[in-house]
């Protein structure tokens, strides 16, 4: 059976869906693969069946986009993980897709990677304990299953998502024991030059409304400089330090968040050039204004290309699709500019504190292989120049998550110890398949399908 198309899109979030709608309308055969069971990505997860008003207007706005995507002629592959993208010498791409234990090889002339973002690693003592999860995970449970924490719940970290989740819980009557804000106190000074853009953006009004909503209803502890999750088999308390004093709060659930970063694995393994963004503290693909990468006919849109949020992602998806069609993208370009307004202010204000990116020696940084910050620092002192050597010696990044949870931490740790930039230090090498798949699945693939071991 032939599996070929004009455009293969990875990810059915705002960027992927928006691109699919435009390309399909123009007559391209479009395939969209996504790991989720319904369109929307993480931001609009479950939006077509979502009934909770408490999730807010921004969330429910995703409904129209998801409906338009499903109504389009694009072929949607839910619960499908793309484990490799490989350029062919003759042009076009081979795309390996795994769906419920069955691998399929697709051929496409063009590819758009729109795999979105993931939570920035938040390595603190005890962060591997059951009961500790990301704020994003808790929000996913809320959006897809209307499930909320039960028992003492603590939110900790920095950034708009944490405030939004607190507000959503408040509206639903879910008690929050405390919100521990780790945003360093003086950062408003660094953010100040970006204030005009922020004041003119949609973020300003929304942020103000959130803060007003939370004031008085949620106990917010500011200037938190240290955090630890305490427990043996599961979480039972959270220690936090503020004003030099350490306090202990009983806890059943600790929800962590310090911003999100691009999901780089698929694009990196496909050969897309990435660079360190010192402002956003993350590796990002090098793209032109259309989302074109260094690989011909491989485009990237949405948060995968650098965090810009859902509204910007939708515009970037449209721009990439229009660029593929050679069409005018003036309107989405103007809208993108408006959608990105205020981001520089947020990036500066919510820049995650150093001690929560470079933890103490005894803290696990690679959750899969249980490698500590001390293990990485010791290697750096002995002359390890980058994450690839660290991987060989410690297995950091060699577990099933393939470095998604530790690559940034390992890079920043080595960079700090050796006094070199993260750009020089580099990201650990990512290889296909970028998702673990069964050997039998791999063997069942035909054509030059086996990912090269390089």
């Amino acid at each position, binding site marked *: 059976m032939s599996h070929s198309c004009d455009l293969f899109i990875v990810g059915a979030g705002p960027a992927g869906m928006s691109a699919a709608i435009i390309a399909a309308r123009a007559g391209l055969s479009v395939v969209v693969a996504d790991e989720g069971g319904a369109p929307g990505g993480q931001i609009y997860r479950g939006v077509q069946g979502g009934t909770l008003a408490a999730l807010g207007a921004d969330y429910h706005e995703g409904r129209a986009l998801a409906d338009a995507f499903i109504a389009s002629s694009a072929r949607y592959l839910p619960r499908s993980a793309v484990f490799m993208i490989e350029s062919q010498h003759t042009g076009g791409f081979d795309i390996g897709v795994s769906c419920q234990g069955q691998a399929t090889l697709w051929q496409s002339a063009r590819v758009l990677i729109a795999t979105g973002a993931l939570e920035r690693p938040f390595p603190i003592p005890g962060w591997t304990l059951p009961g500790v*999860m990301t704020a994003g*995970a808790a929000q996913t449970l809320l959006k897809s299953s209307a499930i909320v924490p039960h028992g003492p719940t603590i939110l900790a970290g920095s950034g708009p998502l944490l405030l939004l989740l607190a507000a959503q819980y408040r509206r639903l009557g879910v008690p929050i024991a405390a919100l521990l804000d780790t945003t360093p106190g003086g950062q408003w000074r660094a953010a100040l030059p970006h204030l005009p853009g922020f004041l003119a953006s949609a973020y300003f009004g929304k942020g103000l409304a959130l803060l007003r909503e939370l004031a008085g209803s949620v106990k917010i502890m500011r200037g938190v400089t240290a955090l630890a999750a305490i427990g043996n088999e599961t979480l039972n308390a959270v220690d936090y330090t503020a004003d030099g004093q350490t306090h202990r709060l009983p806890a059943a659930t600790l929800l962590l968040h310090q911003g999100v970063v691009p999901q780089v694995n698929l694009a990196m393994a496909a050969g897309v050039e990435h660079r360190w963004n010192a402002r956003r503290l993350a590796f990002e693909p090098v793209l032109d204004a259309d989302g074109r990468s260094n690989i011909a006919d491989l485009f990237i849109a949405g948060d995968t290309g650098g965090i810009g949020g859902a509204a910007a992602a939708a515009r970037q998806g449209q721009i990439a699709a229009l660029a593929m069609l050679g069409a005018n993208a003036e309107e989405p370009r103007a809208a993108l500019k408006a959608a990105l307004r205020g981001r520089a202010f947020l990036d500066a204000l919510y820049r995650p504190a150093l001690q929560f990116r470079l933890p103490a020696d005894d803290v696990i940084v690679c959750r899969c292989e249980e490698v500590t910050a001390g293990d990485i620092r010791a290697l750096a002192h002995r002359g390890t120049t980058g994450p690839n050597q660290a991987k060989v010696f410690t297995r950091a990044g060699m577990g099933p998550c393939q470095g998604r949870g530790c690559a940034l931490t390992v890079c920043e740790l080595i960079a700090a110890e050796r006094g070199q930039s993260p750009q020089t230090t580099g990201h650990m090498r990512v290889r296909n398949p970028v998702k673990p798949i069964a050997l039998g699945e791999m063997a069942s693939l035909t054509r030059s399908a086996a990912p090269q071991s390089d």
Partner: protein
Amino acid sequence: MFRRLEGVRVPVEICVNGQNVQASDGDSVAAALLVLGIATFRHTPKTGSPRAAYCGMGVCFDCLVTIDGEPNRQACLTPIAPGMTIDTGTRLPQLSETASI
């Protein structure tokens, strides 16, 4: 611990660690386990430390459980299905138990 805001929508019978229990249609395995009060999903092969769902979106692989006999399935990405059997808390044999072989 977690609870449902709206109660079970469409009940689905599943079997968790040998017990027949009810979950709600549309739940992921992770969501169903959390509501059932199962805090620990597995133990790590290296140190035996407990783990559960962390990222909730298929990235971290900490929520691995055995589903219908197949080990290391991602609970957060797998939807429940009628009659599904789920086993949590997997531990590998300790090195000391196998070292003498």
